[in-house]
């Protein structure tokens, strides 16, 4: 039986009669959605086209070539890619345990009056502009590293075979380790907030039954909460990785800006973002250096895109 509605009488073909305003709004909304996709593809395409001269000049070896010589016009992405990967991975190594500790405290241990303020404080960390982190890193962390941490570690491990190289090198204060530490501080809020949110989604009945059987707080966390939220926690970590990969100004201040593969944690290095920030202003239009920098931008775009896509995939809401 056909029910006639007061608002949208059915036509013979069964489609609703819509007002002009609706049609316009729908088209504009759809257009804006397509515009975002177009913008994204335009960025990728222009980066690729800009980087094409250097891909052509250096071939696929560009991806692992480690020379960056503006005088001889030889450029290679090996050093920036190495620096990006190493600093981001080190930052995660430092940040993930700390973020886990923060999330654990906020969900299980902290008294109720403490949870909101500390949670807000963590989220405020995410709101600080990255150049402030860079300046704080350069004026506060770098002197501490160069005057206390680096000489002490260097002298302690001077004669130990493997650790001697890892902690060797002149105590500049800047370097891969300092950059990883600053990145870790920047990435902790994202990971901690995601972890806390997913820890809170564990159905209380699971935890209560574990407590009922006699588990300690840590055993509940280890055996119930973490396995239940494992996939989403991975997604949060990938989100943090995505931020760490693209971080520019904070890293540029503290990484020491040297175009060599670092053999020690204290050595200066470069990431893709920092080398672009430093060398872009002086690259003449149409030069091989400019197209190498654009090629590096394209590579970073691809890496970040993949990491963020994986993180979205892992973080999608799942039916319990």
């Amino acid at each position, binding site marked *: 039986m056909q029910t006639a509605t007061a608002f949208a009488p059915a036509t013979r073909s069964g489609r609703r009669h819509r007002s002009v305003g609706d049609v316009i709004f729908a088209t504009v909304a759809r257009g804006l959605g397509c515009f975002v996709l177009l913008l994204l593809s335009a960025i990728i395409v222009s980066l690729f086209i800009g980087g094409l001269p250097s891909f052509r000049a250096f071939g696929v070896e560009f991806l692992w070539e480690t020379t960056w010589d503006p005088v001889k016009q030889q450029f290679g992405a090996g050093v920036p890619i190495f620096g990006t990967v190493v600093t981001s991975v080190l930052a995660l190594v430092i940040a993930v345990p700390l973020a886990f500790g923060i999330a654990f405290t906020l969900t299980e241990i902290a008294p109720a009056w403490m949870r909101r303020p500390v949670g807000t404080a963590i989220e405020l960390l995410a709101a600080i502009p990255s150049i402030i982190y860079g300046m704080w890193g350069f004026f506060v962390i770098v002197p501490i590293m*160069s005057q206390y941490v680096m000489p002490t570690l260097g002298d302690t491990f001077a004669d130990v075979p493997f650790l001697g190289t890892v902690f060797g090198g*002149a*105590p500049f204060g800047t*370097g891969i380790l300092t950059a990883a530490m600053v990145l870790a501080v920047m990435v902790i809020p994202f990971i901690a907030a995601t972890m806390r949110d997913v820890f809170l989604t564990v159905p209380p009945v699971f935890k209560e039954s574990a407590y009922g059987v006699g588990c300690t707080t840590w055993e509940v966390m280890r055996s119930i909460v973490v396995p239940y939220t494992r996939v989403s926690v991975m997604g949060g970590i990938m989100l943090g990785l995505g931020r760490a990969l693209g971080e520019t100004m904070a890293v540029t201040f503290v990484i020491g800006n040297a175009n060599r593969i670092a053999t020690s944690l204290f050595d*200066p290095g470069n990431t893709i973002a920092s080398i672009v920030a*430093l060398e872009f*202003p*002086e690259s003449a239009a149409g030069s091989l250096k400019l197209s190498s920098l654009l090629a590096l931008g394209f590579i970073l775009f691809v890496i970040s895109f993949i990491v963020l896509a994986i993180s979205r995939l892992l973080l999608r809401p799942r039916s319990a």
Partner: protein
Amino acid sequence: MKLVTTALAITLAGFSYAAQAQEITGAGSTFAAPIYGKWAEAAQGVLGVKLNYQAIGSGAGINQINNRTVDFGASDMPVAGDQLAEHKLVQFPTVIGGVVMAVNVPGIQTDQLKLTGELLADIYLGTITKWNDPRIAALNQGLTLPNLAIAPVHRADGSGTTFVFTDYLSIVNPEWKAKVGSSTSVNWPVGSGAKGSDGVAGTVKQVRGGIGYVESAYATQNKLTMTLQSNKAGSFVAASMKSYVAAAASADWSKVQNFAIDLNDQPGAESWPIESATFVLLPTNPKDPAQSGRVTSFFDWAFNHGGDIATQLLYVPLPTTVQDAIRAAWKAQLPAAKM
């Protein structure tokens, strides 16, 4: 009432627009940033011209003037004649300054440590890694040098000061010339980079065992520990106005094109070895000829009245013959030059 307020607002806006129109923009060399800043302060009252100068490095300055985003570019590296013709630029020097070595070695005071150009090149090549290396100790018999790693600091951004320093190293050390070369940005074998001369000065101050190259103005203003360098005549000189003037005095300007003189490694017992003129690049086909005229009148004022300010900041003013040659070049190549 509303009409009166609006009319008043428009008139005031018109005045402020007229006031702002007297601004010239420049970008480039950090080497010259201190002196351009002081000249701008002094000239503003006299000429009514305000200078907005961005010390982004010589390489970026050349790039900006090629793209005509600023009124003039400033570079310590002279641009080659064919590049000047291609981008329709005229080049002239404004002032001469020295590049000094700053060190941070515990127990060493300023003007105590003796170094030669070859040693500098070997330090920056990574051949010499410790402060108590026998070659350094041989030159400095009276000093106790610690067993400390040398931490060379260089400019991370594209810098004319880097060009001056690497050009000097190429002159005194053939291995440096073959391996690295000289430019605003090179492939440094060792060392850490810092952004800007203030970054290099700051890093050297913070790192024990650090050595870096900065303009004389930054070294004196930041009270850095400076070295004694050996010059072509073989004597060790301290970085001072006397040694900068001595190096500039032996320059022969008649032999160069486009004023592109190289003041590194000049003869003379008192000469400072690492020195350079700093250049300004002006378009010969400016979009706004009036702005071009303001730039030339600013530098003309600086040539006539800015000598004392330059000397205070340890820059050497250009000789009057060179200044006259520059004015002649303006007349010949810039249609809107005002002096």
